[in-house]
């Protein structure tokens, strides 16, 4: 074979291998984003599962705070029903806000605060809140990596062929950023 033919074969091989490597890299990043998203769901569900127990414990000591309990239950149902990234984000943040109110109200009941059950639930919930935050952080990190890749040369060529679109970040809504007003009525 003459050198030109060999040269062409080598170039074609290099392009094919590069394509495969880039393609696989993109698939890895995309599935990481998908997995990270479902991880957030896992943590949100764990928190949702803890809530009925928490509400019952608090009710045992603070029967009259009906408004607070209703808000928590409504927020929880809303979260379980949310579908898109934006909906889930907002619902999760609303639930966090109602839980903050619940804990603020619990401050008024020393017997409740002292109960072992309540303290354990508080620690459990606090741990789950951290995990939700970490899961969201990892999701956003994965989205950033993916979005960077599909825009950079040469990965954007392959991404274009696969018609990959940038993914949405999980953001704090205005509701969460605003200071939670605690009502004692």
């Amino acid at each position, binding site marked *: 074979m003459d050198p030109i033919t060999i040269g062409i074969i080598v170039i074609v091989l290099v392009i094919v291998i590069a394509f495969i490597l880039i393609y696989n890299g993109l698939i890895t990043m995309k599935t*990481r984003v998908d997995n990270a998203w479902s991880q957030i769901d896992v943590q949100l569900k764990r928190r949702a599962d803890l809530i009925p127990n928490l509400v019952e414990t608090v009710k045992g000591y603070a029967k009259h705070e009906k408004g607070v309990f209703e808000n928590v239950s409504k927020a929880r149902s809303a979260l379980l029903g949310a579908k898109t990234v934006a909906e889930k984000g907002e619902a999760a943040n609303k639930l966090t806000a109602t839980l903050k109110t619940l804990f603020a109200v619990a401050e008024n009941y020393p017997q409740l605060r002292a109960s072992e059950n309540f303290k354990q639930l508080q620690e459990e919930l606090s741990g789950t809140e*951290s995990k939700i*935050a*970490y*899961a969201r952080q990892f999701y956003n990190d994965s989205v950033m990596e993916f979005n960077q890749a599909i825009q950079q040369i040469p990965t954007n060529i392959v991404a274009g062929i696969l018609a990959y679109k940038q993914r949405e970040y999980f953001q704090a809504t205005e509701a969460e950023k605003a200071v939670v007003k605690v009502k004692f009525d």
Partner: protein
Amino acid sequence: MTELYNQISSNKWKSYAIVLFFFLVIAAVVWFAGYYFAGFGGFSVAFAGVLAIVTALGGYYWGDKVVLSMSRARPADENEHKYLLNTVEGLSIAAGLPAPKTYVIEDEAINAFATGRNPKNSSIAVTTGALKKLNRVELEGVIGHEMSHIKNYDIRLATLAVVMVGFVAILSDLLFRGMLFGGSRRDEDRGGGALVIIGILFAILAPIAVKLLQLALSRKREYLADATGALLTRHPAGLASALEKIGKDSNQLKTASEATATLYIANPFKNVSAARLLSTHPPLEDRIAQLRKM
């Protein structure tokens, strides 16, 4: 936050450069052995290689069990160490890794280490001193640092470095003896006296060079773990504060030995005023300064 990303990439590039130097020294030693020993060259290289690899494989597969039993670590308790277990799980979510097995070491000194050949077979151990004396944010900083060692495959890299140091040490030793006591019998004319002197010098300096490279690599990976850990917790001040407490704490870790010193977050040998180049860890003040800059 950009400073943090810069530190991460800079430390990564520096470690690649160090590994490259490693390979260059090894290539030179192997070439020398081959050139000088003629027929024996291949044998000596193979001998050194096999010995180094066998010790490395042992360390690779059973290393974490050995280290954990040497430090007398016990598994973390579900109830007593709930916060620690939650923190480890939370940070492994942030890192996108399976949660490592968590252990506790009964010791007043503030320290922690991570071990394991890959994220699926990894463990983290924390001293009771650390659990007592660090607040929540500081403990998160420490766990973030350890998680980063696992995420960056530092344990595997350190094992590789140890193999290379062992390989060069053995091969240089063979080379040294060979040249000192008559060298190759195959050929009278092998460049004469000058080459022998260069060869002997090289055989003496190469092991020192790779040892220094290994320590330099260890220090760069410590900086990298600090930065990656800060990215995980998004709170560099937590680890900085923990390192400050470690600096002020006079307790020395009882179960540390030369072999395990590299794995700990802070150099467990406090009274060693070794030169900076001979230390496995960067100086605490420098690490704190880098963290405060992020």
